[in-house]
């Protein structure tokens, strides 16, 4: 943020960073082979649903786009509004690459509709060998991923596991370098 922005007061949303979403496709190979982390066959993209005339139409079109882009198995899409008034577009597909492509299609459609800055993040759901959930969250504004592992208690997260994941995945993914931006996402509906 430049000096002039500070003086004049910046009032624009940050644009999405260069898209590094597809790094997830390649990293997933490592997840499977070395870390025995498997996809739960579901991913979500979270955005603010604006109350404008064209937004609902864009959202409706997105579903068709996603269902059209999936190669063979057919991605199923559902939408859900969470308790914070954010909209989740939830994609289900056992083919992980199709999930990444689908998420990218949703963000692309929002971007094309002029609502790219409304996207909060994308979430990919995984589970480890013992079936415990873990999530990788992609922050569009930062163009970076970070792990999110819910802990046992209410609103607790397993920081140790998250940090270990970061070390294990290493250079495979662009990982958010500032730990204070590893924002948790409670009540993930996937």
């Amino acid at each position, binding site marked *: *943020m430049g000096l002039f*922005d*500070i*003086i*004049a*007061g*910046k*009032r*624009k*949303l*940050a*644009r999405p960073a260069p898209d590094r979403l597809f790094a997830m496709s390649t990293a997933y190979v490592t997840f499977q082979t070395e870390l025995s982390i498997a996809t739960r066959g579901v991913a979500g993209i979270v955005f*603010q649903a*604006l*109350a*404008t*005339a*064209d*937004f609902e139409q864009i959202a409706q079109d997105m579903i068709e786009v996603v269902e059209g882009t999936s190669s063979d198995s057919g991605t199923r899409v559902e939408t859900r509004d969470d*308790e*914070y*008034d*954010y909209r989740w577009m939830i994609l289900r597909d056992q083919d992980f690459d199709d999930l990444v492509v689908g998420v990218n299609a949703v963000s692309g459609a929002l*971007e*094309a*509709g*002029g*609502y*790219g*800055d*409304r996207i*909060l*993040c994308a979430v990919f759901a995984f589970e480890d060998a013992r079936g415990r959930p873990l999530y990788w969250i992609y*922050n569009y*504004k*930062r163009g970076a991923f970070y792990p999110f592992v819910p802990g046992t208690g*209410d*609103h*607790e997260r397993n920081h140790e596991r998250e940090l270990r994941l970061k070390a294990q995945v290493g250079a495979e993914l662009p990982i958010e370098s*500032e730990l*204070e*931006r590893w*924002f*948790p*996402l*409670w009540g993930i509906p996937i």
Partner: protein
Amino acid sequence: MARPTSFGRDTGLQLRMTLTLFLLGLVYAVLIGVVFASGYSFLVVLVAGMFLIQVFASDKLALHAMGAREVTPQEAPQLHAMVERLCVQANLPKPRVAVANTPMPNAFAIGRSPKKATVCATTGIMELLSPSELEGVMAHELTHVQNRDVMVMTIASFFATIAAYIVQFGFFFGGGGMGSSDDDSPSMAVVILVSVVVYVISFLLLQALSRYREFAADRGAAVITGRPSALSAALMKISGSMERIPQRDLRASEELAAFYIFPPHAKQSLMNLFSTHPPLEKRIAALSRLESQLQGAA
């Protein structure tokens, strides 16, 4: 072709803000010139010391003065989650989150940089507002953080503080007598006179600057949440209950008042010129213009 953002630009506001800062700089340059010409420059050093103490100690003092306490995500999960999502949207690191236990609905942000910021909401505001309205208010405070308004206002008021001190010290030392024996340099009386003028002018300019930054924060909140009308609703609710609830013990400093979502002593009789916050109707009008931009941009 993708539209760059959902909202238009606000060149007018930026111009007014830059002009105000320019005028402040001009007034301060006169003050510095006179003070140094008079040979009382030690005063500047003295006040600069006080200023530094103010910058580094004010956060904790302000929180303490408000009876606010930092809360963990377990204590206030909803508020934390709301702030976290807004931070992702605004591309900010997460500030500390505090809650003040008072029925007066209000919120404020402090901290000289985004990394050291704290946003605070009162228990009153959390009870009064719906989640989307509270979200608008917190986004307003986060925009203050993003715009570094605490730092800007503190630096902008630095020389006004110096002028105020010079007036006090000057009378304390009994004016004229001490200091410059040089006939060409202005006497203490002149320095005091200039300081008074500088203080009055810079006070008015600072109030104007504060109002502009308030508008900017409203706008920023609308941009972050995408719901200008929710913030309008929140402002109307807050101002409504502000009038109903008696003013409790709230001797917050004036500097702090600039960062409230709503000024604690908003008297209708006060002239706009002397107010840190724009009048409610103007803020609502600005927000409804944003709402129609958003809807019209469709």
